[in-house]
């Protein structure tokens, strides 16, 4: 059959690519709800470098999406089952290196077509079934799985003194990480450090919140998650190095376009560990789906989700990307194209 792929061809310009869809050994999924990631927005606005834009485009955006199985040539799934889709792809099987860091891995919506398509064809191991999760929440499963991945690695790497875990950042990623830490590190005090008092007010479930410019002199954390990224990375990492206790583990999740200077003298003196985290794999998706089965967590995440009107035309695609610019957290929308 013929499939419609809604590709970004240049900043703010969407074009339809028609393709004869390969269904052999594939699961066919009709996307239902999508969520916009900052990475999608940067491509859409043309905020990546000219070199990167030239390398990656044209491509369909969106890597956070849930949908319904409409056909499965492998008989792994039943028609009508609700699923989330894994955008990371790697043909390497390795028990040591996570699939999202495999040298041959590639990512849908980063140089390959993302989920803005009429139908998505995936290998069955790139599909994870879910039940009892509201669709707008299920749409952000990939985002949640990134937090799961970071916390999983933290759990393996960080020493056992975990009295206080600090999260730098007050955006969606910080919110997800804070929510998950409250579920997964129940013995720890969770503290969030941000810049925007209105956004910090959303973090009602954590133990304390602070404005980054007004941290008390005796402030300290045992470990830290950096969820800032961009131009703020420097300040966040610098704060973390200053306030973290010796041999703490720092999980880096924020994406910076430019190189960030860091004060290595204090890193060495304190014996700190820095771990970079990006994206996620199948096990993280499975864990995310399991966690999202918890209604309390769903309710908590729903407070950062803004559901825009459905997308039924290319004009609507432009509308949701424009609207997302004024949304402090996550924009999700029903996909009707």
């Amino acid at each position, binding site marked *: 059959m*013929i499939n419609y792929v809604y590709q970004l061809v240049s900043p703010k310009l969407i074009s339809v690519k028609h*393709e*004869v869809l390969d269904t052999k050994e594939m699961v066919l999924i009709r996307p239902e709800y999508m969520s916009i990631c900052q990475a999608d927005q940067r491509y859409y606005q043309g905020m990546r470098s000219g070199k990167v834009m030239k390398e990656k485009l044209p491509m369909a955006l969106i890597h956070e999406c849930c949908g319904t199985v*409409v*056909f499965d040539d492998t008989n792994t799934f039943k*028609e009508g089952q609700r699923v989330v889709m894994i955008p990371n792809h790697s043909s390497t099987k390795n028990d040591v290196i996570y699939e999202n860091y495999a040298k041959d891995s590639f990512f849908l919506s980063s140089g390959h077509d993302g989920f803005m398509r009429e*139908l998505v064809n995936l290998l069955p191991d790139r599909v994870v079934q879910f039940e009892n999760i509201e669709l707008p929440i299920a749409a952000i499963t990939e985002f949640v799985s990134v937090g799961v991945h970071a916390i999983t690695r933290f759990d393996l790497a960080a020493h056992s003194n975990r009295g206080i875990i600090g999260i730098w950042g007050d955006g969606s990623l910080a919110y997800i990480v804070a929510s998950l830490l409250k579920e997964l590190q129940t013995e720890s005090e969770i503290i969030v450090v941000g810049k925007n008092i209105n956004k910090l007010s959303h973090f009602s479930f954590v133990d304390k919140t602070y404005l980054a410019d007004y941290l008390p002199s005796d402030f300290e954390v045992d470990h830290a998650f950096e969820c800032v990224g961009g131009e703020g990375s420097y300040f966040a990492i610098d704060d973390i190095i200053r306030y973290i206790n010796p041999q703490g583990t720092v999980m880096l999740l924020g994406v910076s376009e430019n190189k960030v200077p860091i004060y290595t003298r204090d890193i060495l003196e304190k014996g700190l560990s820095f771990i970079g985290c990006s994206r996620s794999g199948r096990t993280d998706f499975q864990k995310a789906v399991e966690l999202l089965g918890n209604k309390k967590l769903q309710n908590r995440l729903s407070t950062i989700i803004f559901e825009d009107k459905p997308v039924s035309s290319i004009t609507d695609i432009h509308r949701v990307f424009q609207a997302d610019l004024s949304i402090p957290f996550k924009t999700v929308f029903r996909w009707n*194209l």
Partner: protein
Amino acid sequence: MIFGAILAGGIGSRMNIADVPKQFLPLGNKPIVIHTLEKFLLCTSFDKVYVGVHPSWISHMEDLIDKYINSKAEKVCIVPGGEDRNSTIFNIVKSIEEDYGENEEDIIVTHDAVRPFVTLRIINDNIDAALKYGACDTVIPATDTIVESKNGISITNIPIRSHMYQGQTPQSFKIAKLKKAYYDLSDEEKDILTDACNILVKRKMYVHLVMGDPSNMKITTVNDYKVAQAMVGGMAID
């Protein structure tokens, strides 16, 4: 119940490409009608998808279904096509009633086999509109100014463009409503009114508009076929 009705009853190629009807010509790696049928079979709302095929080409269509449609072949039913578009539709209606009886609420979604670029969104919008309004037509706004000429020599009228639309398919109906309008026509009217929606319009029945897509083109001419081939990145065949 909801039924798909793919109209593949034509026998003329009009393309000078091959001796097969255009719905059987290859597009990418499959015949055009198979692309269309596959999209209909993905729509879970359909209880059955009927394909109206000229009697001479039924065995060919059966072979194509055996070859290309695996897991959902049981949802497909081939029906002999009629002499024209409407008689093919009513052959399908007759077959539906033989299989499932007559039901007031049954919906039929009729579609040209040679429109393989139909989308699930268009099909689902048709089903929703037919259920809600009883009848609908798929259209796109006219981009060119429409010029009417009754003698083919001079302009009779230039309608306001914003009021003009180009008709596509699917066209979808409550079967009972379609039958009522059709059987009310005289034989003369039946010869003239080849468009199913027009039958209802002439009987002053409400027909809702469903937005189509410019890509949902009808492959009728050699040029259309070349464009379709180019759209899916295939080779144009002269």
